[in-house]
């Protein structure tokens, strides 16, 4: 294959560079030319994919929904991380707060993360709406940070934790992976914070392409990613940095995991960038 596959990814952290260097080298060492472009935000990446300036975009779920809706469904999701499937949002509070379910949030301050984060803002708002008779019973406090990164930096979620610890809010919404990381790294005094609600599962990131992309490129990219050996030290390192154990194909079943988000983004008028 002579054409260089051009892949887009968003630089949400300095570690993103070594991740894509490893993937680029992996392809190049095996005779497939691949290069990457770094974007500072997902909106630009979506625009570049839809206008054919890049071949593949490493998209968040929010970016995927936008690509899908803005292109009238003329995009395809090829692959995702095992950890992107059955992703959840978790609501957390202080253990001694008497908040044991969403109903207990009436009259309380509830924190949402970055407005473009599916796990910390967009979907949690939807879950609150579903469980509460009137969403206005809860005082929503928003922690917008790193807009354009779709919550990848996790900053707003850490801000929420801090606000709960300092009693500035009563509870808040974060993604399950951030929650596990907070516990694992001992980011709050033992037992002081607990979860009281776990959402239904949904899907997170995927590699998105235009339907019109050369089938051979789609096939080669998918097969080579799936062939990566997680036990090879350099691959292992990349997978640890990128937070996966293995790549998996995005099938019809996984695509269902984006339905709720699509519906919610339509309701919240988020199909086009509005910030």
């Amino acid at each position: 294959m002579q054409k260089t596959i051009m892949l887009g990814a968003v630089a949400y952290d300095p570690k993103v560079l070594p991740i894509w260097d490893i993937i680029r080298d992996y392809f190049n060492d095996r005779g497939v030319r691949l290069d990457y472009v770094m974007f500072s935000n997902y909106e630009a990446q979506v625009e570049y994919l839809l206008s054919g300036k890049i071949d593949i975009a490493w998209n968040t779920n929010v970016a995927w929904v936008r690509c899908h809706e803005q292109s009238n469904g003329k995009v395809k999701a090829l692959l995702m991380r095992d950890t992107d499937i059955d992703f959840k949002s978790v609501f957390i509070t202080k253990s001694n707060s008497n908040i044991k379910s969403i109903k207990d949030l009436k009259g309380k301050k509830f924190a949402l993360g970055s407005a473009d984060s599916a796990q910390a803002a967009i979907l949690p708002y939807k879950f609150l709406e579903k469980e509460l008779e009137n969403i206005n019973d809860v005082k929503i406090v928003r922690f917008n940070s790193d807009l354009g990164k779709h919550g990848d930096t996790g900053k707003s979620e850490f801000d929420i934790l801090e606000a709960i610890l300092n009693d500035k809010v009563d509870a808040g919404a974060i993604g399950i992976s951030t929650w596990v990381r907070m516990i694992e790294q001992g980011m709050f005094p033992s037992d002081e914070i607990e979860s009281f609600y776990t959402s239904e599962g949904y899907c997170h990131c995927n590699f998105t392409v235009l339907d019109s992309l050369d089938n051979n490129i789609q096939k080669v990219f998918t097969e080579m990613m799936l062939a990566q050996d997680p036990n090879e030290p350099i691959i292992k390192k990349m997978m640890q940095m990128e937070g996966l154990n293995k790549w998996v194909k995005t099938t019809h079943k996984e695509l269902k995991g984006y339905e709720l988000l699509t519906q919610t983004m339509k309701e919240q008028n988020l199909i086009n960038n509005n910030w």
Partner: protein
Amino acid sequence: MNNQNHCISIFTGHLKPSQALFLKLENVFLVSNTYEIIEIISLNPNIETELRGWAKIKGHLYLGREVLKQQYSYKIQKITKNSFSSSASWNKKMKGIETSNPKLKDLNLSEEILDKAPIDNGLLTRGIVTQEGSPHYNFELSHKELIWSDPVSILYEEGKNLQWNATTDIAWNEIPNLNPILEKAICQIMTYLVENEFSALYIPGKFISKINPYYMEVPLFLSSLMNDEARHIEVFTKRANANGGGFQYSSEVTQRSLYSLFKEEDYIKSSFLLHVMGEGTFVDLLSFLEKYMPDEATKKLIKLAKRDEMRHVAYGMEHVRSAIEQNPYRINSLKNTAFKRKEFMDELNTESTMLLESLAILAGGSDEPDDYKRGFELVEELKKTMNKNRIKRLIDIGMDEDLANDISKAHTPNFM
């Protein structure tokens, strides 16, 4: 795998989702096998979100929760590849513990000592189980035949038993005032000894970090050897400065000889030149010095240093002997090494005149012409003894007599 799906249970009581709980989980999963099911028995009814989330991130499969009598059973199946290729040992008690005398040789770290260290043996040794994905150090000296010497464990114990202290074990205040000519000769000899001891300290130091610690006895012994050499440097320095003299001169030929030894990059060749040829010859020199030193304190420090050097020679002899035994073609390369060194030294073609005169004055007792002449003859005798013993050592490590003769003759006039 034998215990596929075998269920391991851990009891976590009231432990909530916390660093402490996740740490425990991490370790249970680390040492379990792929597809094994780990059951977490907890008093907490609602830690499912966190366990499921943790399992997902780690690539394991959360199987579900069951209510037991006042307890809850959460099950997670390990899906990821094993982190260790084998289980660590247990129920081991080394020999010698009952008698409170456990020696290095009594360690039984592995059933056998492999000819080549495992590729993943990092800064650790036999019996320690390495986690998959640990870095490969690629130690240059990872083959047993390149470094091993059978008596190394015994020599290590001997080295510890025969440690001495250059500050307190020598009767420094009993060194008598000597004739300045004699004292100066002794100071020159001490200067030369210090130079040579530096080579004996630095050369093993150059190789020790290249030796795979799978063969841990070797670096342990070499570190004790280096400690011996440090003590020798200390004691000879003190003697040079003990009696109104001080350090004297270093000759170019000595430095050139030590340099040719120092720059050798091959461990076996270096061991051959340093321990078999150099330190072996040095032992004869020390016997000579011990014999002719005029005072007991200096005799004693020479004697103690010689005892250490003999241990080093024993290590090197067995090391090179077994290396030759494994590969007889090595004789050729050792021969070439010795001749190459001679060629390098021949550019100067001289002996350390200052040292030889000092040795003659020491052996003769003064620089009076008759004493000096007698002393000089004794030094010539010493060289013959050195040559004879060198040949004997070369034959002992597996060379034939003719070759031993040739190589011994090619040895540096600097002795070391």
